């Protein structure tokens, strides 16, 4: 479902005199349907970067990334937009929304964009919000003033409301208490069970263990002084 081949990423900081920051080199791995993989490695090694590259949010310097057979590197924007609409989901660490839109509408939007009748989409949104233990009083309020944990759960609801065949999750359980963490873990496992391929970053070892089948160590793709990867062989379980 997700295949990354010989990918690398270099940041060029023009505002700092144009210095080049190689972050990732020769990334190779793949994930099949129904499999959940965790990206591991120390903070700042490039886990989020890699996730964003797969989503098309960051440009890859070279190499190939395919999601459900669609090439992301060098793709036309509309190709990636279509991919993101129906196939590739992304739960980031931050909730970014249009101000003053009600929570239930924020969560329902991905479905409405795909053509689900708005009332039906909102019902599904409400069900998911209930499951994530977001109280009904909050559903008609815009989420900007909610607590971090509440915002994160709304983010997750928005990311999971549509059954994406491929899911990217970045710290989905951070800022959640134990009960809510469990709900999220359950949701991810259910997604996996229906055949989704999941790639995630989990600092919480317990969540990682509960959801994921194997790890990919991003540290293996960090370029050394010469810009080459420490290990060029693909890592798999």
């Amino acid at each position, binding site marked *: 479902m997700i295949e990354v081949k010989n990918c690398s990423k270099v940041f060029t900081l023009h505002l700092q005199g144009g210095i080049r920051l190689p972050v990732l080199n020769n990334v190779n791995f793949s994930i099949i349907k129904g499999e959940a993989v965790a990206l591991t490695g120390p903070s700042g090694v490039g886990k989020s970067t890699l996730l964003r590259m797969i989503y*098309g949010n960051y440009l890859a310097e070279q190499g190939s990334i395919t999601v459900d057979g669609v090439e992301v590197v060098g793709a036309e924007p509309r190709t990636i937009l279509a991919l993101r609409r129906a196939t590739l989901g992304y739960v980031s660490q931050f909730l970014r929304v249009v101000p003053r839109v009600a929570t239930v509408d924020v969560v329902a939007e991905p479905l409405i964009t795909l*053509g689900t009748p708005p009332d039906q989409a909102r019902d599904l949104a409400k069900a998911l919000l209930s499951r994530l233990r977001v109280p009904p009083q909050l559903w008609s309020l815009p989420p900007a003033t909610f607590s971090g944990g509440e915002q994160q759960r709304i983010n997750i609801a928005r990311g999971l409301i549509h059954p994406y065949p491929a899911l990217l999750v970045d710290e989905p359980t951070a800022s959640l208490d134990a009960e809510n963490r469990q709900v999220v873990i359950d949701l991810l496992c259910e997604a996996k069970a229906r055949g989704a391929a999941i790639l995630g970053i989990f600092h919480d070892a317990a969540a990682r263990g509960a959801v994921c089948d194997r790890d990919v160590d991003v540290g293996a793709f960090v370029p050394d002084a010469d810009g080459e990867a420490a290990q060029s062989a693909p890592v798999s379980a």
Partner: protein
Amino acid sequence: MTALAAELPAEAPSPGAEALLTVEGLTKSYGSQIGCRDVCFDIWPGEVMGIVGESGSGKTTLLRCLSGHLSADSGTAVFDGEDGPVDVLSMPEPARRRLMRTEWALVHQNPRDGLRLGVSAGANVGERLMAVGWRHYGRIRETAGSWLDRVEIDPERIDDRPTTFSGGMQQRLQIARNLVSAPRLVFMDEPTGGLDVSVQARLLDLMRSLVRDLGLSVVVVTHDLAVARLLADRLMVMRRGEVVESGLTDQVLDDPQHNYTQLLVSAALRL
């Protein structure tokens, strides 16, 4: 005759096989001063393209060349219209004006430029319908009323003049007036400029849902990166008349490649 639908389509729009608008080599100078140079891009059905840049970037010149207010020095802009592909820049004026009233729309920065202030809201919205030949007063009024509702203006105000509306309401009226003819391509020039922040938010949300529900393609010219982030799928960054970078909005804002884009993004107050 263009279909004038007040109803929502049941399906989300799927990408067409043809680009809706293909612009190539668009160049306009004011004497020795470059307005915009060699601009190339295309827009696909259902896409929102943001054009950002500071003053003097050429984004307004580009918009005005495309909408027919200025004549470009060179270049083509081929629109996949009802009657087949046509180069908008070399169309005869009557045809271009007809296009601007039917398949295209232009939402001005200042709603007062895009409305008839001396006639009622209903007349403003109904004008395009009458221009394409609608002859039944009752139906014109009814359609105007439903569009007012769609842009969240109380339909009771159908007979009020726009001078009695707030700035945000005037802007929404302008949008209704433009969308009533079911255009496929909408140009917006700083649509939230001059509005209070809270009013901007409501307008942005309205625009997003209209784009989604009606399958519109939109070109939004703005200097506000936050508006571009929320509204646009794709972004084009212009500087001194040239396109310096383009791509997915989130990619251009999160992973800017060009020198100038990085400067622009780092200077934005809140993204």
